[in-house]
């Protein structure tokens, strides 16, 4: 088959598209040998990341995160519940990840995505083991009342690196979270205080949740000797070996996840992925701080 040239009239453009569909690996190899990817990014660079806090006005905390085209909407709603007997002064967080059919052509109403429960569990494990939120902060009255935070993350557009975007939106939603003011009414029940009520509030004012070290993640793809950071869904489907590294802001490893894959990871690859991640932590921390301070100015 004659090799198509990149420039030229419409007929040679069509050939490039056909080459991309028919021989995806060779198409990518031509780019990787020049240390670049089809969308023009160098191998170690992630896509443009944006964060918008307060996307869902009715939720106590929410955020919309976009990494390239991958879009995740996270929202936190708080509810008062009785804490369990084993931990009477701790609240609870329930995390759920949904992939509605809007996000990708492979998800249909009767055919839920296989990735959804797996990502959901990974997110809850990461957030709980990173110790970002001290559950004792969610306590109201020892042994009687505590907060239950329901975090729901909806994938609106699945274009690769789903875990990264989901974790970023979850962290941003918790940064934006404002715990509502509550008071004890006459029946001894906790009710959410609205502006007009005169009763004595149990907690003084709407306060923000104090976050300890924040976890950030980066997914990399291994292909032969190359390491590609932040893959798109096309790259993920062609080159299946991926590594997800989660580091927190004090550079501790929260998770190193490599689920199989035909390319074996030697210690050089492990070190390179961690180095790429350290750089990404700085970028993501800046983006998060900018978004949070932007909200406070309002």
């Amino acid at each position, binding site marked *: 088959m004659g090799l198509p040239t990149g420039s030229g009239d419409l007929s040679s453009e069509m050939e490039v598209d056909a080459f991309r569909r028919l021989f995806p690996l060779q198409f990518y190899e031509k780019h990787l040998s020049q240390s670049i990817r089809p969308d023009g990014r160098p191998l170690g660079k992630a896509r443009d990341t944006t964060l918008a806090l307060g996307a869902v006005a009715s939720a106590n905390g929410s955020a919309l995160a976009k990494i390239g085209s991958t879009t995740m909407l996270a929202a936190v709603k708080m509810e008062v519940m009785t804490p369990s007997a084993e931990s009477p002064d701790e609240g609870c967080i329930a995390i759920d990840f949904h992939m509605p059919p809007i996000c990708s052509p492979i998800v249909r109403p009767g055919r839920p995505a296989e990735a959804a*429960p797996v990502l*959901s*569990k990974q997110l809850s494990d990461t957030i709980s083991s990173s110790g970002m939120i001290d559950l004792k902060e969610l306590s109201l009255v020892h042994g009687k009342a505590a907060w239950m935070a329901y975090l729901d993350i909806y994938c609106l557009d699945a274009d690769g690196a789903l875990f990264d975007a989901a974790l970023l939106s979850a962290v941003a939603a918790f940064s934006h979270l404002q715990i509502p003011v509550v008071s004890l009414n006459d029946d001894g029940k906790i009710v959410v205080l609205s502006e007009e009520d005169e009763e004595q509030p149990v907690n003084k004012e709407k306060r923000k949740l104090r976050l300890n070290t924040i976890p950030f993640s980066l997914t990399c793809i291994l292909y032969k000797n190359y390491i590609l950071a932040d893959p798109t869904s096309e790259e993920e489907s062609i080159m299946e070996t991926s590594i997800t590294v989660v580091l927190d802001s004090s550079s501790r490893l929260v998770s*190193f996840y490599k689920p*199989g*894959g035909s390319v074996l*990871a030697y210690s050089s690859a492990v070190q390179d992925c961690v180095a790429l991640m350290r750089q990404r932590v700085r970028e993501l921390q800046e983006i998060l701080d900018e978004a949070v301070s932007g909200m406070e100015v309002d």
Partner: protein
Amino acid sequence: MMEMDREDGRTPNQLRPLACSRNVLHRAHGSASWSQGDTKVLAAVYGPKAGTKKNENPERACFDIVWKPKTGQIGKLEKEYEMILKRTLQSICILTINPNTTTSVIIQVVNDDGALLVCAINAACAALVDAGIPLKHLAVAICCCLAEGGYVILDPTKLEEQKMRGFVYLVFPNSVYSVLPKESLFVKGEPMEHGLITSVTNGVMSVEEYLKCLERGQAASAKLSDFLRRNLQLQLPNDLSKSG
């Protein structure tokens, strides 16, 4: 560094007694039971069967994993284990030999006393060998646990897993016996069996501690490789061909 006393008296690098038996189920095309101490897992392989599922690539063989817990309903944990097992087994099998076929692997947890996923991966690999599915190499799985002082213990029990700061499940390819000189088989200056197929971590640790776990895992996988090789070779001459 203080030597830690483990409850069953093992040293930090000592694995629990391993037992592997193949061909335990007569109807399955391949089956194996693997136990490490009290953790026991039964794996059964049916396949290759004709046809692939809807979204899978028909030019390759496809895997369908079912994980059955000992008690309780199937939830997110089981789905995650199924996905990790599927991707690990896909990477050790030669998928192009039987295209457009589905191989089912069913994992039944008989008892869970720590390092469950590791046991399941080892059992599934032995069951695949028993069924005669073409493999590139075997998958050797090991669990490392990180204790408070920063030192690593291997093959924890369930109590140890819950008490410790974190644990790591690692899967390596098995070691290679070759007539070629060792150095010619090295990739990037390391022997092939030090490459990582799968890694799942739980709990926070520093990057250095993770690398230490990797080293310990690589050393232990050599011992496990030898055990697997002896075990799988012994039963070969007595194997009657499985009639259809």
